[in-house]
């Protein structure tokens, strides 16, 4: 497999009135063509900020560290995403080779512009096709994602569609430009469970058909288990564990991943008490020293956790974890 996008040493801080707040801390990962990566973590773990960085879409008060590097491999050679400046250059990562769908399909459509107009606008921005052609493709895409009567939906507004239909339309719009990478930021969180399953199935089909890479951002490990090839677990901006989905879920190494898995409700044993990960996420202004998880870790081994940042250790060739429990030579 060949790499589609490589993220290296990505560190993002935000300038705020209270000082610099770290949102993403030294994150590296690679997604291959046609691969689905799940990005899991609680709110505030920097999932969305990481995703937006791939489109260079973070707010203007975001500061990228000098070592941060995001490389997108296209047919015309590699593109350094963070070096893109002008709107014209940025188009390749904004709706061109990379598309994004958001958590709230209702809020991500402009309320007073028809769905069709927004789709046509995007297509015309990224190609030199005629308006007529753009309309044909849009209607085709709406049909492809399972929206009935697509020609009528094309001229409707987001508020006239049901929740599931809106997210389908959003997916249709995101895929219309045939991106190589789709970023799905909690795409099913706002949907009913039944609709959720339909949308996930649809996305799986489309990945196969378009041979796209997907970053699937969610806090729901259950959804990840169904969709992703590999998973990265984030906590306070750091990737604490990364590996193939089955491996990580069956054999979690990091206490945080173990905690997340234990917190999932179990249908086969409804009387079992829920076991949430103890404690609260620390304020971003008070980042813990050493291992960022030590304030909540049930398996803390001592001062080393409080003072020394654990490096990533390969527990096997594809599975790595950042925890002192697994550091080969405990320091």
């Amino acid at each position, binding site marked *: 497999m060949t790499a589609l996008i490589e993220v290296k040493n990505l560190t993002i801080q935000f300038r705020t009135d209270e000082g610099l707040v770290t949102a993403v801390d030294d994150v590296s990962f690679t997604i291959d063509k046609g691969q689905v990566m799940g990005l899991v973590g609680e709110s505030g773990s920097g999932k969305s900020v990481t995703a937006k960085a791939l489109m260079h879409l973070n707010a*203007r008060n975001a500061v990228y560290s000098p070592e941060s590097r995001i490389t997108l491999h296209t047919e015309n050679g590699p593109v350094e995403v963070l070096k893109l400046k002008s*709107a014209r250059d940025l188009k390749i990562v*904004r*709706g061109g080779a990379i598309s994004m769908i958001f958590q709230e399909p209702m*809020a991500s459509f*402009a309320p007073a*512009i*028809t769905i069709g107009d927004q789709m046509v606008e*995007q297509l015309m921005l990224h190609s030199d096709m005629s308006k007529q052609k753009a309309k044909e493709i849009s209607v085709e895409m709406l049909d492809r994602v399972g929206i009935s009567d697509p020609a009528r939906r094309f001229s409707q507004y987001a508020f006239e569609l049901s929740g599931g239909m809106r997210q389908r339309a959003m997916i249709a719009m995101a895929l219309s430009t045939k991106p190589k990478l789709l970023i799905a930021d909690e795409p099913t969180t706002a949907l009913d469970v039944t609709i959720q399953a339909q949308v996930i199935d649809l996305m799986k089909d489309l990945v196969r058909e378009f041979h796209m890479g997907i970053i699937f951002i969610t806090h729901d490990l259950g959804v990840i288990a169904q969709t992703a090839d590999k998973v990265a677990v984030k906590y306070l901006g750091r990737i604490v564990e990364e590996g193939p989905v089955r491996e990580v879920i069956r054999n979690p190494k990091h206490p945080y991943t173990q905690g997340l898995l234990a917190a999932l409700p179990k249908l086969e044993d409804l009387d079992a008490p829920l076991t949430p990960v103890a404690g609260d996420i620390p304020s971003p202004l008070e980042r813990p020293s050493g291992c960022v998880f030590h304030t909540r870790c049930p398996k803390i081994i001592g001062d080393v956790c409080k003072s020394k940042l654990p490096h990533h250790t390969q527990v096997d060739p594809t599975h790595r974890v950042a925890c002192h429990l697994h550091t080969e030579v405990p320091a």
Partner: protein
Amino acid sequence: MALVTLLTVSLIVFTLMELVPGTCAERYLAFKNTQGSQITIADIEAEKKRLGLDRPFPERWGKWVYNVFVHGEFGDSCILRLNINQLLADKFWISLGICMAALILSYAIAVPIGIISASSQSPITNNSLRFVSYLGLALPNFLLALIIMLISTVLFGDSLTGLFSKEYRDAAWSWAKFGDFLSRAWLPVFILGWSATAFALQTVRALMLDEIGKLYVTAAAARGVSGRKLLWRYPAKHSLGPVINSLGFDLNRIFNELPIVALILTLTEAGALLFESLARSNDQQLAGAIIFLLTASIVALNFATDILLALIDPRVRRGLMG
């Protein structure tokens, strides 16, 4: 709908006119009395009969509404004994024109500047705008009027008061008179527009900031929409709804401020006349007529803004059509 509102308004206005202690007949005769005439109870009764004031309330209201709606007649003024239509003549239209012009001026300035300033990150732009707008909000209109009068008197020897130059004051309307009117009317328009602009600027800017933060703007940026298109087609278009909605309210606010400015600039317009008729002479017929005309203008403006709103917002449109 607008017609029902107007009828309701007419009922309220008419009731308010009735609630003023004393009737038109008593008021006129009392006025006569101060002029030295001897008045008896019989005189008052006769006057009441002449004015139809002995009739029951619904009948009088019906007659008033009928005259206003069908003939555009407001009857006679209580004190001056003149036909109100003649008395008001162009004054109401001049007032309305000045207010509308101030309203248009204020939004013509506030909408583009408010939108651009909301998207601008430059602290210099933002702070200077804030300064100007606070100045506009804090500086009373009458003070501004006085300052301008003072400056123009010192510099040009003309206080810029009144709506017409001497030679045109009693002339019939003509292009020359209209030109003269325009050369003077800009001052009240400017003064009224000044604070209205400051207010509108704050509103537009706040609404715009609110829209810019919304997800659909980020989503549009994520699709590659950028620059001016991202600003005007997306948040700007959507932030204008509430602005359009409040136009009627703004017109009323400007009209409220008109009499003070008119007083200082000695303008002959309806706002000052309303003030005069309410506060000094208790001329309920005249006051009622002006209030009714003002409300009717606002209702008409609201009707127009509703249509405008339906044009830019499909949610309103679908709501109207069911």
